[in-house]
């Protein structure tokens, strides 16, 4: 197929022919074409099927407002549905296909929906699919899902990469038409940092689609010169293919830059970048979008917007039809006819709805005024149009000029409401703009080129002055103001056939009127009832039309009827771009400990705890399941010695003359009297008396402590301590600093732990039970002078230590500990064995500190000091928190020792039905205890402390289990703590 519809002229590069395929057929276009321009050049009229009725549709517009020409680009995993052909740039080898049809585009089986249209009118979902109820899931929804919707995803993982970024500027200029370029030039000349963004691949906006003169040269040339001037300014950054899609708080804008969509391959670079723009001021120069007029069968391929028909001729050198008629209600429509004649296209007629003298005299073009188009023919391409006069014209393209709507979208993103201007029959930005934003040019309802240049410059000068810059005195370049008179004319009442308002959602004038009759009269109801203004185009060409028809139906003015406002995004933003790099393993950062490499070399399997990766167990030899490894780790540790990486615990350095006061305030139990060289276990409450965290704090000096927090609460506790010291006691002398990452810390536990440590600790340090008893701590040196911190604390219930070294030695220390421990058969143990041993000892962790439980629940109520104030002190005294009926943390063991226990089971008395009112509590932690040879559990039982020895049921409705358990002490193993003190 040759490019039969190509005219002379245009801005495409005819020296660079591009081959592409459309539904498998190879075609040619030129560099600079959009897919839509190239299809039109090749005479392709039918490009898709409508959403609901599967009506044949053609290209309607020449920009991002396109409702019809949604196509699929590329193949396989790169396949991208619902792309507007009007903004897809052509590249060599582009494969494009149509979508939303069963069978071929030309013969769509679902076109029968069109015959059923009486049943598919506004609100049909709500009416038709109501009954029978059971049909919704099995029949209706699958039917709707297969019939509706547009393109299809490939089902494969998106192979492209996406990125995000941050941009900063004094002045953001959105749009690069005459107003935008004029604004950017003025702002740039003042020395302010300027960012100019345009969604198009070339700058200039409408100037590229028109034949206007600016500054004594063509508008196109003027735009090129302006861009050249901006490019050499160090303080100006210009970004094409970048849509500013949202206006957010405090001068922040969202923008999507399409980096590689116009290239055959992204070559591993990000396809899109979602930018967050911080601006001092923003000038919206987003231009205007043309709208249609509703008349019978106005959706046929070949019925197009007049400004777009002109753009195809002027910018892309493409005639959109062999014989073109223009239907207008304003002066601008006439320019389409005159420009088309100028480039040699065949214009049959101009039909103006206004009773006016012909606006122009265009040779060879018949003119009808005071009339409209009321019907069209042609199934897959327009064949003729019928006028209200009864005359029929054989044309294959009808250019409709219904007037221009300013692109006010971004002015509405913070609830700004546009106001109606009857003289231009359009909504313009209201007074309540997002702070820092001003609007210039067509977006502000100013349509003349000269006025756009002047207003753009003025807006920029005002903005830079507010920011403290001196505005440049250089005036705006010269241009004409084109006539743009309009008489509102929304739909052709003489039409008897369906007249479309919203092409994308198949909303007709009848649907709007029906919504009115059924009481859905507010614009928000109109939208939701009819679906007008939804989907990819968000009603850019439809909303005002629909609103006007609603106003007419209600017998009210447009402002009385309402306004539609807009939310971000202005045009679709791919999810990939919003996700950026945050997918797969890059979803969040990982924290790893210094022993990570060693652990991987030694069969560790890892689990995420918060952002940390922790070894959960180490597979040794031919161990078949995790239980084999965990049981072995527990047994060997209790028998001799084991080592566990506890680096992940939060560590906070606390110093100052009032350091002890801070601890006393944060912990429920007292710390002021903790001697130097000692460690103490503490619990922290929230102000409401609920347990927040627990851990040990060591006193390294009179005014120097180091606190440990649980792994996941480290950040929250740091923040909490800062709250106490800044918001409650701002004059205390106390300073905190996170040292979590400074130290690699290992628990060395088991009867041989001291013997192992003796092999690495420098000789001058006495580790004997007398010199370094349970809960002692000290700064020591190991391996010949390397500083370390040693704490005699135990989570396992064994004689145990935690040893910390500067993290750079962490890898080396874990290797040395295992080398030195060989003679004791030392084992590494992971998080799971750690958990088994702590359950055997009845120690609480996050499973017990759930944010619902108190110190009293945990059996630590007596730790709350009554002698001092602390966070949570007063409210923990509330009566119900201290009654005999509260949950108590207890141990549980199965009556039949062979039975397994399950976390989350609920407790009920034998003979009770499992109901809310019989619920006694729940199982928080379970483990198989290799030490005891059966399963054990911890749990909260109502008044459990007074029910030792009672047998109750652990009922699990989810896993369908019901096990008899005996209430026992939570201290299953070595209840007197002889081992850890030994």
């Amino acid at each position: 197929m040759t490019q039969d519809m190509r005219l002379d002229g245009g801005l495409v590069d005819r020296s660079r022919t591009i081959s592409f395929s459309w539904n498998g057929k190879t075609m040619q276009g030129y560099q600079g074409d959009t897919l839509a321009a190239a299809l039109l050049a090749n005479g392709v009229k039918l490009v898709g099927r409508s959403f609901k009725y599967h009506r044949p549709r053609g290209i309607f517009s020449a920009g991002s407002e396109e409702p019809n020409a949604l196509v699929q680009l590329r193949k396989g995993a790169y396949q991208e549905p619902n792309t507007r052909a009007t903004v897809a740039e052509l590249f060599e080898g582009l494969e494009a296909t149509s979508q939303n049809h069963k069978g071929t585009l030309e013969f769509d089986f679902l076109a029968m929906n069109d015959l059923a249209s009486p049943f598919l009118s506004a609100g049909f979902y709500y009416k038709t699919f109501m009954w029978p109820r059971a049909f919704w899931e099995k029949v209706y929804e699958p039917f709707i899902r297969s019939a509706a919707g547009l393109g299809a995803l490939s089902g494969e993982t998106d192979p492209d990469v996406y990125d995000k970024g941050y941009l900063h500027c004094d002045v953001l200029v959105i749009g690069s038409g005459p107003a935008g370029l004029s604004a950017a030039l003025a702002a740039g000349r003042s020395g302010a940092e300027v960012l100019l963004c345009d969604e198009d691949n070339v700058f200039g906006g409408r100037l590229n689609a028109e034949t206007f003169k600016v500054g004594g040269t063509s508008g196109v040339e003027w735009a090129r010169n302006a861009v050249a001037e901006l490019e050499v300014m160090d303080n100006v950054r210009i970004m094409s293919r970048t849509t500013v899609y949202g206006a957010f708080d405090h001068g922040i804008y969202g923008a999507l830059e399409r980096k590689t969509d116009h290239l055959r391959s992204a070559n591993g670079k990000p396809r899109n970048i979602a930018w967050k723009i911080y601006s001092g001021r923003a000038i919206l120069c987003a231009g205007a979008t043309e709208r249609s007029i509703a008349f019978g069968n106005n959706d046929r391929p070949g019925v197009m917007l007049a400004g777009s028909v002109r753009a195809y001729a002027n910018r892309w050198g493409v005639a959109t039809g062999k014989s073109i008629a223009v239907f207008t209600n304003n002066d601008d429509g006439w320019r389409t006819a005159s420009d088309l004649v100028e480039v040699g296209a065949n214009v049959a007629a101009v039909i103006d709805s206004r009773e006016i003298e012909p606006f122009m005299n265009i040779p060879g073009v018949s003119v009808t005024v005071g009339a409209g188009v009321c019907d069209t023919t042609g199934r897959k391409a327009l064949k003729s149009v019928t006028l209200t006069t009864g005359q029929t014209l054989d044309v294959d393209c009808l250019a409709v000029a219904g007037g221009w709507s300013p692109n006010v979208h971004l002015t509405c993103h913070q609830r700004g409401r546009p106001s109606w201007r009857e003289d231009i029959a359009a909504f313009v930005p209201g007074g309540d703009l997002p702070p820092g934003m001003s609007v210039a040019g067509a977006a502000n309802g100013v349509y003349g080129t000269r006025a756009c240049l002047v207003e753009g410059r003025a807006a920029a000068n005002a903005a830079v002055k507010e920011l403290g810059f001196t505005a440049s005195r250089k005036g705006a370049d010269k241009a004409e103001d084109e006539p743009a008179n309009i008489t509102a004319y929304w739909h052709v009442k003489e039409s008897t056939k369906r007249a479309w308002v919203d092409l994308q959602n198949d909303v007709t004038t009848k649907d709007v009127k029906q919504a009115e009759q059924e009481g859905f009269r507010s614009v928000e109801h109109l939208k939701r009832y009819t679906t007008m203004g939804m989907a990819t185009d968000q009603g850019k060409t439809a909303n005002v039309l629909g609103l006007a028809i609603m106003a007419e139906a209600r017998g009210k003015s447009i402002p009385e009827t309402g306004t539609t406002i807009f939310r971000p995004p202005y045009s679709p933003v791919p999810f990939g771009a919003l996700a950026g790099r945050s997918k797969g393993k890059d979803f969040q950062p990982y924290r790893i400990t210094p022993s990570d490499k060693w652990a991987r070399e030694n069969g560790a399997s890892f689990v995420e705890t918060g952002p940390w990766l922790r070894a959960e167990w180490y597979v040794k030899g031919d161990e078949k399941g995790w239980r084999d490894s965990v049981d072995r780790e527990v047994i060997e540790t209790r028998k001799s010695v084991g080592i566990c990486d506890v680096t992940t615990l939060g560590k906070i350095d606390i110093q100052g003359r009032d350091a002890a006061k801070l601890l006393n305030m944060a912990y429920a139990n007292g710390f002021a009297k903790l001697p130097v060289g000692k460690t103490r276990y503490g619990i922290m409450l929230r102000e409401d008396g609920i347990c927040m965290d627990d851990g040990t704090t060591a006193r390294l000096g009179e005014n120097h402590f180091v606190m440990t927090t649980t792994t996941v609460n480290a950040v929250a506790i740091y923040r909490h301590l800062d709250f106490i010291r800044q918001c409650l006691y701002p004059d205390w002398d106390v300073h905190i600093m996170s040292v979590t990452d400074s130290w690699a810390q290992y628990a060395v536990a088991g009867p041989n732990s001291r013997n192992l440590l003796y092999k690495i600790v420098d000789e001058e340090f006495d580790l004997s039970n007398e010199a370094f008893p349970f809960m002692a701590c000290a700064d020591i040196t190991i391996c010949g002078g390397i500083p370390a911190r040693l704490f005699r604390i135990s989570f396992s219930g064994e004689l145990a230590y935690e040893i910390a070294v500067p993290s750079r030695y962490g890898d080396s220390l874990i290797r040395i500990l295992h080398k030195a421990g060989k003679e004791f058969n030392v084992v590494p143990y992971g998080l799971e064995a750690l958990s088994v041993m702590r359950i055997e000892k009845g120690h609480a962790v996050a499973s017990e500190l759930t944010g619902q439980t108190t110190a009293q629940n945990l059996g630590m109520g007596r730790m709350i000091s009554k002698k001092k104030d602390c966070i949570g002190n007063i409210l923990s005294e509330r009566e119900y928190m201290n009654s005999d009926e509260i949950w108590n943390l207890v141990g549980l063991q199965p009556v039949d020792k062979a039975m397994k226990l399950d976390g989350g089971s609920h407790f009920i008395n034998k003979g009770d039905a499992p109901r809310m009112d019989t619920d006694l509590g729940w199982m928080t932690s379970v483990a198989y205890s290799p030490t005891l040879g059966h399963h054990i559990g911890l749990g909260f039982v109502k008044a459990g402390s007074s029910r030792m020895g009672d047998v109750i049921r652990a009922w699990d409705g989810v896993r369908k289990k019901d096990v008899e358990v005996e209430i026992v002490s939570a201290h299953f193993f070595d209840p007197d703590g002889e081992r850890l003190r030994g």
Partner: protein
Amino acid sequence: MVDFTLEPKAVLDGFDKIWNSTRLRELTELAAVAVSVPKDGAVALNQKLKAAYGRNVPAAGESFIGKGNTRVMSFAKDQFMILFDHAAHSGIPIVEKKLGNTGYYVEQTNNWVFLELSGPQARAALERVCPVNTHVDKFTVNRAERTNIEHMGTVLCRTGDDTFLIMSASSTAGSFLHALETSMDYVSQ
């Protein structure tokens, strides 16, 4: 005598890579000590600091290079950090010698990974991950701020027109390096 010797290991094994003429490398021989100013102790501390490094504590967000190529950077009220070339694991003894007991010291040498990003693409790479405006007129040489990069707490300090010292927690060093490397891969031609 203990028979074992501990070997230090750089967080990122001394990472060093060049994309055309932009370089990202780990600085492995840098010590860092956090200093908190005791209540009512600013005068005494400033006196010592001035004698040792030539200047008072800078305002939050600023840093200076003092004697002995020492960088004193302040990110907060009553708290600053002293960084200097030092191959060992601890900087406190050196700082303590100069400032005596006028401040509260916390060893930070092992808490951070220190990266230097330098070259013509440095700003472009940062632009993809960091919300700070790195325009040289706004984020001037010696400016030092805490911020975030890909959700990770970051210290960003401009040490030259095209050179940045970038610090993050040593436990996230791998993810942090990945973020900066990815940025460099994306922005380099």
